[in-house]
């Protein structure tokens, strides 16, 4: 006899007094489950469900991810208008084929050696970084872990993907959004995805291995380990 059948029997046995119970009659003997106690089992169960759903969906992500602000509130919109060569003014391929993703301070200094306007963020840029010659510690949203080798050249030049395929609309942002990272792994939240359920609406919503592999599969690109791992 399986355990479940036994349980059922027990439940049936325990249920019997409730069925026989007539209103107005004396309350059941202490220690024996009565009607109201039976009914309360459902809300207790539901309470358990709700509490843990709350913990899992709301508290957990709040605890798991820490937030940091970027050192400078940077506006892509403003810069897009000001630079001559579009995105490539700051994000470009180096001669060896590697990609200069985050611009170096010297890139910034080319224009901001002297203040160009009166924006307080610009003043901060000059005072805190350009003057002392200190690199800006940008927090990289799309930074992959150390075991990953990513070739911008392969994706931009060969696969002809647009930057937005992986980076979304960051190029149109007017303010830097907070950088969230996982306290356990230290990875940027952009890698695991902003949707805690892992639901992905856009290609740039998540950048885990499966997402890379999925696209490689679709495009008929090699999916061997050493294509992306190092």
């Amino acid at each position, binding site marked *: 006899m399986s355990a479940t059948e036994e349980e059922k029997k027990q439940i049936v046995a325990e249920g019997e007094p409730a069925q026989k119970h007539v209103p107005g009659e004396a309350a059941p003997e202490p220690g024996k489950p009565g009607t109201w106690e039976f009914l309360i089992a459902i809300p*207790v*169960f539901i309470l358990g469900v709700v509490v843990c759903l709350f913990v*899992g*969906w709301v508290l957990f992500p709040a605890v798991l991810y820490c937030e940091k602000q970027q050192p400078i509130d940077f506006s892509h919109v403003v810069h897009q208008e000001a630079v001559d060569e579009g995105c490539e003014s700051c994000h470009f391929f180096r001669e060896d084929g590697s990609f200069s993703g985050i611009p170096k301070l010297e890139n910034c200094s080319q224009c901001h050696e002297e203040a160009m306007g009166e924006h307080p963020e610009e003043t901060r840029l000059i005072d805190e970084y350009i003057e002392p010659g200190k690199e800006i510690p940008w927090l990289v949203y799309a930074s992959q872990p*150390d075991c990953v080798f990513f070739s911008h050249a392969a994706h931009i030049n060969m696969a002809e993907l647009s930057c937005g395929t992986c980076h979304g609309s960051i190029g149109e942002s007017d303010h830097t959004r907070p950088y969230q990272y996982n306290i356990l792994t230290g990875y940027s939240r952009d890698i695991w995805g902003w949707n805690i359920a892992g639901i992905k609406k856009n290609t740039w919503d998540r950048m885990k291995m499966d997402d890379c592999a999925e696209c490689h599969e679709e495009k008929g690109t090699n999916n061997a380990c050493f294509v992306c791992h190092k």
Partner: protein
Amino acid sequence: MKMDRRSFIIFSLGAGAGITFSPLPWKLTDDMAIWTQNWPWTPVPPEGVVTHADSVCNLCPGGCGITVRKVGDRVTKIEGREGYQVNNGGICPLGAAGLQLLYGPWRVQSPLRRVGKRGSGQFETISWEDAIDEVVKKLGDLRVKGQASTVACITGLDRGTVPQLFDRFLKAYGSPNFIRTASAGDTYEFALGLMQGATASVGYDLERASFILSFGSGLIEGWGSPVRVIKAHSVWRSGNKKDRATLVQIEPRLSNTAAKADIWYAANPGTEAALALGLAHVIVKGSLYNADFVKNYAFGFEDWNDSKGQNHMGFKSLVLSKYSPEAVSKITGLSAKDIVKLAQDFAKADRPLAVWGRGKGTLPGSLYECMAVHALNALVGNINKPGGVSTRPEVATQAWPEVKQDSTAEVGCSKPRVDGAGSNRYPLTKCLPERWPKEINENGGTIQALLVHEADPFYTTLDSAAVAKAFDRIPFVVSFSSYMDDTAYNADLILPNHQYLERLEDFPTPVGLQKPILGLLQPVVSPQFDTRHVGDVLMTIAKGIGGTVAEAFPWDNYETVLKETMGDKWHTLEKAGYVEADYKPPAWGKAFATPSGKFEFCATAFDKAGMRISKDMDYLPHYQPIQPEGDEATYPLILMPVELIRLADGFIGNPPFCTKTLEATELKGNELFVEVNPKTAADYRLSEGQHAIIETPKGEGKVLVHLSEGIMPGVIGMPKGLGHVGYDDYLAGKGVNVNSLMGVVEDPISGLCATWGIRAKLTSVLS
């Protein structure tokens, strides 16, 4: 509401269901898996802009061109420089491990002053100003007290601007004691001076030789400029069978060179000169020599009459009378048949070349042995010929203004040298780097202050006990080392130089190269610690002392010195990283600046130098056995140092990567193995891997025994390069320093260290 057991279970069931339908368990599992891959102590090397920079390696006298790969401001790799005229790509293990020396904890990070007992390794950090002041004060005081000549300086090389600055400093200061560390080059230069009247280093055209006869040289084990020689070896091994060059190795041990050789002859150690002369005998007897050279450009081959009409024995008579194959067979242990065959093959080869310098060439060796081998080259007429041996000058640079000496300097410099070089006994010898400890310990020599640059005499000088004793008698030892090497460890003051990847300096022609080439060390990375360029420091010291000493250094800084010295070559040097001189060895008619104007088998330069040579034979290369120290009854075996390319044994301590590559039969834990033939082992009841005590007249050490069929019975091979006290746990305390078991046997003519081995005994101990 009361929470009873039942509701708790129901609540838990609900919680379980709730949690299952939340991301928590799935995400947490994933994150934890990722977390285990990201231990915070596993370094994540930062990315950066990749650049490359060229420089020259100075970890040995090989002077290879290197290219470093940089990521941001970090150097991440050293590679051989493509197209560099010495190594053309390719690198040796030591050169490839150079970054461990740059970033390693054995760097001296700031000027240090000894606080504990000498050799206790206790130092305090001091400022550069204090450190320089201390040297200035000490040297200034000695000078005032009229003891200028008691200052000595030991450098690794004597060529190049920095060693020359030290030399100049001593000249201006008033001391004759400029000493460079020992090498086989010392003896070869001596021999070239005698036989060719040349003041030059030896150059071997290895690449074009077709028959290479090596008298114990570890050609592919770090001899000469290591990468260049290994490349030459590959040239010998290229092409189809009949085009391939022949390599013959004479050595009592199956070294890598012996293993790679087409023929390996295990002649008795120390009998190489006899073998060379035996070969000469066969060549002369069979008229296999180059008659044109011998007849028209050589002196002393035939018997000759001096100006007084006295008849003297020539080389021919000597070898014919004394070195028959049978006689040589008895000395060397090779068969007479083999000797004849080898001589014939050598002489009949297209471009035969005999090379000399035992192991890596770190010990000077016997003069007559060197002369005997050089005579073989002369016999086959390969002097200054393609595939032969030549004298090789340095790239010409701008001379510095004469040093103006004050009276103190004049008096000081006229005093005898502390090592005895240039004295009546050794008039032709420039310096005797293995002799000064003996002079101090036994003959009342005095060094009041010792300056050490790019050398580790405390470690590399033979007879470590005597060296330590001599060090004890030197009240002031200053090291300019970038590393905590053994000498620095035992110094009173360390003024750390920039490491070789951090500084600008010229590098003279690599040892053994046939063409003059000057390389440039360039700072490929900014100084990692509070170090200063030794050239600048030395000039600051000179300026501190003042007077004519300061005047001898009219330059603002070392960079100016270098640029001025290079003159019009600076531009090329800076741009290409090296300059090559257009040099062709002179034709035989113009090549020899000897008293006879010819190549001298019979070195009459001895007379010119006023050396008293009693016997005719002593003018000629002959076999004069250098007896290893110790009596045969007490010490029945012979210990010979084994030099390995994976084990640096000079002023650079072996970096961890190289130590890691040592064989399991060379180092085990902190103990080194000595190599003995199973026959010898059986005689002394030794078995593989067991402990033994090796004892020589100079010292003893505990070692492990490795049985090898590759070593001659009766000989013990012991790796050279271990047993350091300096550096740190990655090197210090590993093995025994073979130099501590060896003694100095002086060459009777040159006074240079002719040691090749020492008598020893090996006693089994229960481990």
